[in-house]
């Protein structure tokens, strides 16, 4: 249009988008490429617990050494084998009427009772058969041999003894049950070990065709924006593009993200191709290879970097956005991504040093406390650091700089929201109703986090497993499931394209709620309104990712002090009258009356042209 010499921009952007989509299709498509062959060795590598392996192995005999190309079939057969195993455990270990019938028919043909009968009858019943034969041998050994007892008496004794044995069946089955947590681990490990396919054999090629191609495409789409015109706020067509106005593309992206998050949290065995894609990289980083969360951490970091580049370009006129975006990229790529992997390589307890309780809700879990306190200097440092950060660091930094020092400069969730989430910031609900819900929910989560942590610490120090009649472990699992997985992941990030990029931070993050208290009641930070210059246009409120109705304050000439404000500074940037400024302290307009009348010796006044000549 206006810049005819920039005709290259549209084709480059279009090709970039195409490359990105190709990369995306390859990335998703690779999930359907593996074959699955369950071998003995795959099984023994996957199920480290010998007794569990011996228990489950006979049930998997149909799968052994057969190749399945359909991932769903393979995984769901495995899953149902495990649940079938658990569900039928008591039945299988119960001596049934059929068992007794079989015993009695042997007794009839033999004329008396013999222990060898038991071996014959139970030989086809695997582990349960061995158990039942053993128990009956113990209970009916005295009955064996030709003792001349009538068959009816033998039958009665076998029935009575079987009933005695069956009463206590759970004594044995409890020990043989494979609980959901272990089953989940085995399911993932078996699937991983049993799988083979083009991705694992051609990691380099697939990495180039998916991740690198997608990244290249994204950058080709992003970078030309820099050359489309002068720097400044460009929000043209935000509300006419269905990707950014909550329309069809937004809904499709939401569905995709939700599915991915559900897979990550609950069905990681479905994304093993992705794991193998980054396995070599993580072998280098941490010495042991990738897990299901590795691909997440990698893509998450990559998204922050690539979309961070977009931030650098979109807000190239604003050093504030450039500085905080650089900070977010730094903290994500080092503290969240590299350092924890390197700590693993060094055989040290691994942690994201910028994350903290209560966002990091498992910090006070028994296993973490034990691991940190028992692994030397670095472990103790992480423990003390983690406590100091939220107990001292948060109040101190928040007093001086407001919540933003963490939420829009350091935090990983904030990092994703401020970069990959930036195109969605206008979708947050600004209504009073949404604010009411926000306050109840976010503070509710904080209370939940505090109570949960208090309970598990109580258990940790006293060894008592229940508090006020509630099992502390149940409380902790409920938090992990509902808040940790469903809220922060599936809803918090999955719904970016429908509810804005700070869904989690605004409605769910307990750390944000805690920092928010300090910001609201004891901080120098506020957004200053410049006199009465607000024209109520609504850009500030529209582009506030936290759903603050900034205009409601600005049009009354009031400063904005809100616990939820993360200080991203976008309201100030989009304001067409420059009315808003993020500040860490007041500036009083005090006139020094003794100096206000001083004059200077003015000889001449230069024109602009003369000045330019002088400067250059």
């Amino acid at each position, binding site marked *: *249009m*206006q*810049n005819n010499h920039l005709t290259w921009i549209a084709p480059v952007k279009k090709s970039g988008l195409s490359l990105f989509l190709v990369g995306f299709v390859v990335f998703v498509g690779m999930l359907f490429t593996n074959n699955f062959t369950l071998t003995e060795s795959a099984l023994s590598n996957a199920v480290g617990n010998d007794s569990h392996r011996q228990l489950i192995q006979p049930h998997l005999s149909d799968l052994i050494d057969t190749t399945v190309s359909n991932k769903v079939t393979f995984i769901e057969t495995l899953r149902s084998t495990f649940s079938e195993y658990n569900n039928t455990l008591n039945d299988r270990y119960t001596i049934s009427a059929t068992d007794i019938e079989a015993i009695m028919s042997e007794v009839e043909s033999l004329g008396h009772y013999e222990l060898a009968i038991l071996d014959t009858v139970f030989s086809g019943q695997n582990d349960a058969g061995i158990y039942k034969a053993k128990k009956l041998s113990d209970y009916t050994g005295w009955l064996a041999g030709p003792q001349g007892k009538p068959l009816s008496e033998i039958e009665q004794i076998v029935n009575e003894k079987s009933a005695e044995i069956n009463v206590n069946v759970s004594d044995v089955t409890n020990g043989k049950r494979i609980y959901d947590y272990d089953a989940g681990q085995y399911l993932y490990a078996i699937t991983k070990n049993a799988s083979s396919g083009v991705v694992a054999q051609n990691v380099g090629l697939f990495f180039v065709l998916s991740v690198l191609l997608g990244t290249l495409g994204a950058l080709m789409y992003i970078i030309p924006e820099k050359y489309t*015109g*002068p720097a*400044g*706020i460009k*929000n*043209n*067509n*935000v*509300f006419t593009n269905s990707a950014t106005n909550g329309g069809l593309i937004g809904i499709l992206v939401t569905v995709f993200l939700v599915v991915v998050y559900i897979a990550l949290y609950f069905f990681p065995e479905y994304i093993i191709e992705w794991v193998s894609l980054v396995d070599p990289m993580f072998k280098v980083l941490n010495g042991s290879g990738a897990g299901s969360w590795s691909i997440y951490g990698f893509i998450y970091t990559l998204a922050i970097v690539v979309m961070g580049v977009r931030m650098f370009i979109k807000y190239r*006129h604003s*050093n*504030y956005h450039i500085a905080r975006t650089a900070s977010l990229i730094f903290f994500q790529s080092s503290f969240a991504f590299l350092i924890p992997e390197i700590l693993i390589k060094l055989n040290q307890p691994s942690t994201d040093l910028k994350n903290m309780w209560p966002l990091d809700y498992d910090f006070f879990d028994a296993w973490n406390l034990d691991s940190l306190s028992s692994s030397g200097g670095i472990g103790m440092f992480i423990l003390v650091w983690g406590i100091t950060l939220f107990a001292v660091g948060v109040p101190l930094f928040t007093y*001086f700089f407001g919540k933003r020092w963490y939420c829009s400069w350091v935090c990983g969730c904030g990092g994703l929201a401020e970069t990959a989430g930036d195109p969605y910031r206008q979708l947050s609900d600004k209504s009073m109703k949404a604010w009411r819900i926000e306050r109840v929910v976010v503070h509710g989560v904080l209370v939940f986090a505090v109570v949960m942590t208090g309970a598990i610490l109580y258990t940790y120090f006293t060894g008592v497993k229940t508090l006020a009649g509630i099992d502390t472990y149940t409380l902790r699992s409920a938090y992990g499931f509902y808040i940790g997985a469903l809220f922060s992941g599936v809803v918090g990030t999955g719904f970016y394209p429908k509810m804005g990029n700070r869904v989690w931070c605004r409605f769910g993050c307990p750390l944000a709620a805690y920092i928010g208290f300090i910001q609201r009641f004891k901080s120098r930070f*506020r957004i200053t309104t*410049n*006199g*009465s*210059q607000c*024209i*109520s*246009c*609504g*850009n500030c*409120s*529209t582009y506030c990712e936290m759903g603050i109705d900034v205009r409601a*304050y600005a*049009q009354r000439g*009031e*400063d904005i*002090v809100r616990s939820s404000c993360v200080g991203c500074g976008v309201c100030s*940037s989009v304001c*067409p*009258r*420059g009315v808003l400024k*993020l500040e860490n*302290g*007041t*500036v009083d*307009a005090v*006139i*020094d009356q003794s*100096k*206000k*009348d*001083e*004059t*200077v*010796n*003015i*000889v*001449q*006044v*230069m024109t*602009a042209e003369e*000045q330019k000549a*002088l*400067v250059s």
Partner: protein
Amino acid sequence: MSKLVIIGNGVAGVTVARHVRKRSDMEILIISSETEHHFSRTALMYIFMGHMKFEHTKPYEDYFWKKNRIDLKQGFVSNIDTDAKRLTLSSSEQIEYADLVLATGSKSNKFGWPGQDLPGVQGLFSYQDLELMEDNCQHAKHAVLVGGGLIGVEMAEMLLSRGIEVTFLVREDRFWGNILPAEEATLVQMHAESHGVKFRLETELSEIIAGEDGRAKSVITTSGDEIACDFVGLSAGVHPNIDVVSQSKVAVGRGILVNDYLETNIPNVYAVGDCAEIQVPEGRNRIEPLWYTGKMQGEALGKTIAGDKTEYIRGIWFNSAKFFDIEYQTYGFVANAPLDNISSFYWQHPEQALCIRINYQTDTQVVTGINTFGIRMRHEVWEKWLANNCTLKYVLQHLRDANFDPEFYRRYEQDVINTFNAQHADSQLSLSPLHWLTKRFTREQAHAK
């Protein structure tokens, strides 16, 4: 209970209603033919450009009106009977009032150009204008804008966002020449040109030509040139919309005549905002078609109607605008041309679109006003400097106190001082130290009220 009726739901009328409600229980009714709810007129351009949806431009959520017992009626007032204190709507409904506020706003200027009412020719003031512009731009490729002012720049920005080429016809020798001095006007013009706007300076519209489809197909300028276009934007200012009182006893000039209390010649009838013409006994009557003044007038009038008679005092003048990416603020008075006993210190960045002009009295060196482009200034500080008659030296040395740019922005106070010093070899100024440490730890912190 007495009833206040306000005609017009723009910022002036709504501000009256809000301030009356703060102080009084009287029944309040706002009548508007434009939209059901009050919206920010200044944001119309952002709806067109896709930055916002209409709902985002409403400063108050829809429940606000009921909660504050401000009744709303969509209708068009066709007659005002000030003797019977009764309004007649075009639907023939009749409404009695005790107090009447006229807040009918502006209309776009049309100077009798041939073809000015053709399809494809329009101004931009109301929500209906926005809808019309949406229609008119469906297939437009080239637009001509007549008159270089704020609305013109807004329309240019809107049109360019749709890939429509823009040619500006500007009557003066520079952009917004009746307000801006030459340097600032050039700065804005160059910036607009970098966005693709074409300017025709000292050029006026003479005629708009219709094509075979009856729509505007070209304009002819006073210099005889014909410019092909499929959209003509009339942005040569606005004038008060006084149609509603044309059949009534309310006195009018260019606008509805009022005194400093915004009272018309008829008791209990007031006018506020764009449509009001404030009578100045010795001098030119004032019409102030600005958002800020509409709001300030509304506040004063609201108090008056609620029983606390308050004069509308304009205070230290200020205004602000945005020209594409350049923000503009002005405090005090900066004329578009040199005045007697007023000198001007002007600084401009050698490359970027940034400049500051500080005007002062030549004899006393008391600062009288500032224009600033691309650098935000703190309203309160400038207001105090101007109210306290601070001198140029004082202002320049304390310029840092007035900066309102976001954190981490490059600061230019030292450049400004250096420029001044380069011009005045025998009066070297230096910036006053920025007591950041004491400021950080000693000043009391202000919270929102």
